[in-house]
């Protein structure tokens, strides 16, 4: 009798579940995290929870390798094969929105009021994407190095000035202990250059493009502030203060831990390994080169593709994923910065007193999103090449002028990318 009751209950539950599943409308989702099992597990948990939480939608994810994800999405957009939900790198979002790959999100924006600014993907006055985390860069060193060199420990309130920063590098160089005083990560190419180095330019008072109109780089990338930045940048390599573009990738990976460098300009994603190596690791704020200390912001975010016939369902999933517990899960799994203070308190690394809590404060205090314009994708590549050329000894003024012309020509070719005077 008991057995029969159990079987009947199981049959009933299966039938109800099957009926519910059959009634749900399929939503396809693409994600950039293939090859990262921890990230995939968190995302799958959110999807499973969402699918079980309601009877209207059934999300299924297809993962792509990050390195080729953007190319896959662009190709799919051309072929008319986009899914309902896609994730997009923050600085690329305006380009995809402008190109018609994305449609505005239909979520309750009061739910993201307390988010850090970086994960909010606004363009043209509309919210197109939202991130479940942010990323930040800091000047990594050891307290013992600061003490040995007799240096003041900079704080968010009082970061190093340019003079103090250069003094620190010269002091480290004078010891003869290090291959180079500073590891900038020149071995990493691609988006690392604009993400990690354009904040230096912005701290000098320059930028990749004039943000008041987004119609020209004139004055922003080749004005006095940008020239001062370029000279300073070139000096780092000319004076053997940092390894240049020929830096060995292996040295970038482990050089700081191996004692080759006194300081390393690196991201919160690398912090865990460094903390495991040195118990006196400190993460210092970016120096202030005159226009305030800056670091980059915005990482991967979720959006709804323009091809989706169910933007309400896709938005419902994204809104569901914004719960603090999921933001904390992602942070605990892959070490990225939760976008809300309440989620940060739920994490091992970013809660008050946590080993990486400083990154949350850094993001809040110093983060500046990369230029919010469809033209950014070209500006980033032009900037990367210009920085590499200057590091290799090219004339600063000529290089920045040429980069400015190239960016301006691209903006003109694309009729201002939707921006107007």
């Amino acid at each position, binding site marked *: 009798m008991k057995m029969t009751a159990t079987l009947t209950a199981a049959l009933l539950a299966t039938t109800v579940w099957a009926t519910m599943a059959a009634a749900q409308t399929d939503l396809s989702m693409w994600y950039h995290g*293939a*090859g990262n099992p921890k990230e995939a597990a968190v995302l799958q948990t959110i999807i499973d929870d969402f699918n079980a939480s309601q009877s209207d939608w059934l999300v299924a994810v297809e993962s792509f390798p990050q390195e080729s994800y953007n190319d896959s999405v662009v190709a799919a957009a*051309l072929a008319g*094969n986009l899914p309902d939900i896609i994730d997009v790198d923050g600085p690329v979002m305006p380009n995809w929105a402008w190109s018609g790959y994305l449609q505005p999100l239909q979520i309750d924006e009061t739910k993201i009021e307390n988010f850090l600014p970086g994960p909010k993907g606004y363009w043209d006055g509309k919210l197109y994407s939202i991130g479940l985390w942010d990323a930040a860069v800091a000047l990594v060193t050891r307290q013992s190095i600061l003490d040995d060199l007799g240096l003041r420990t900079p704080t968010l309130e009082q970061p190093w000035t340019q003079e103090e920063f250069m003094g620190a590098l010269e002091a480290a160089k004078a010891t003869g202990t290090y291959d180079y005083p500073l590891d900038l990560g020149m071995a990493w190419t691609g988006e690392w250059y604009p993400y990690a180095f354009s904040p230096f330019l912005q701290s000098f008072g320059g930028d990749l493009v004039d943000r008041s109109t987004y119609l020209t780089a004139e004055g922003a990338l080749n004005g006095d502030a940008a020239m001062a930045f370029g000279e300073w940048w070139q000096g780092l390599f000319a004076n053997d203060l940092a390894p240049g573009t020929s830096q060995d990738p*292996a040295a970038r990976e482990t050089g700081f831990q191996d004692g080759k460098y006194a300081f390393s300009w690196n991201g919160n994603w690398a912090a865990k390994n460094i903390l495991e190596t040195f118990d006196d690791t400190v993460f210092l704020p970016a120096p202030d080169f005159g226009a305030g200390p800056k670091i980059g912001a915005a990482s991967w975010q979720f959006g709804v593709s323009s091809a989706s016939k169910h933007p309400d369902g896709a938005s419902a999933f994204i809104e569901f994923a914004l719960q603090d517990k999921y933001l904390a899960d992602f942070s605990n799994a892959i070490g990225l910065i939760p976008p809300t203070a309440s989620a940060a308190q739920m994490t091992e690394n970013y809660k008050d007193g946590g080993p990486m809590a400083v990154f949350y404060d850094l993001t809040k205090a110093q983060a500046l999103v990369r230029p919010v314009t469809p033209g950014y994708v070209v500006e980033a590549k032009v900037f990367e090449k210009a920085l590499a050329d200057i590091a290799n000894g090219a004339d600063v003024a000529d290089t920045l002028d040429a980069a400015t012309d190239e960016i301006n020509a691209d903006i003109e070719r694309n009729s201002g990318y939707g921006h107007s005077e």
Partner: protein
Amino acid sequence: MATISADNHGLRLVVRYVVLTLIAVIFIFPLLFMVMSSLKPSDQLLRDTASLRAFLPVGDIGFANYADAFSRAPVALFVFNSVLVTGVTVLLSLFLCSLAAFSFTFLNWKGRDLLLGIVIATLIVPFETIAIPLLLLVSKLPWIGLDGLQFGWLNTYRVQIIPWIADGLTVFLFVQYFKDLPRELIEAARVEGASWWQIYRRIVMPLAGPVLATAAILKFLVMYNQYLWPLIVVQQESYRPVMVGLQYFFQLDTAWGEIMAYLTIITVPVLAFYLIMQRAFISSIASTGVKG
């Protein structure tokens, strides 16, 4: 005098073998580095790159990277996909391109030389220039399968195979080889009443071993190394080939040991295929050189 000559001969032989050994070492070192690195933890791997230890099985050696590679990505699926796509494409390509070359070489038809010129001219067109138009085309093409008529070839094996079956280089290789076959054989067969199909099947192809091997190896390498095309036409993991799969290993904290293990695994089919075809390939190259 004879003694001096023998000495010179011996010396020349030693020098020759030293030079050949050096060249062999230069070619084999990258493979050796890959295999040795696949056995080491990432941190040791990076440290060893600064010395000759990079080429030696020293330190903390094991197969953990292989296990980790299989848990990070469906390696076996990627290898299966690549071998399947490559194998089918190579077989179909050898058959169809040799048929085309046979026609260009032995049959007389109007516009033959012009068409051959156009086929050979496609050699100078980089694939990247036609990738997007081809993508737009295959995304709309019809196909009749078990589910009836469907439009769009994306996310299938056929989209990775069919556009690559015929190519100018393979046709060109066959044409060049067929031109050097004795015409008397063909004429004698015709006099005996053989059909063109019989001549192709019973006379020409049995003599085409070297060029078949060359074309097969070249096609195999092109297909096995496919990256851009599958990247844009395949959005489902179940159809991804090995080169797109390689991207799974480039994360924020790149697992170099796993990358080397993955590369070692996916190199095995290439080496095996080359070793099988090696004799015929060298024979083909050598004979081309003599005739050149």
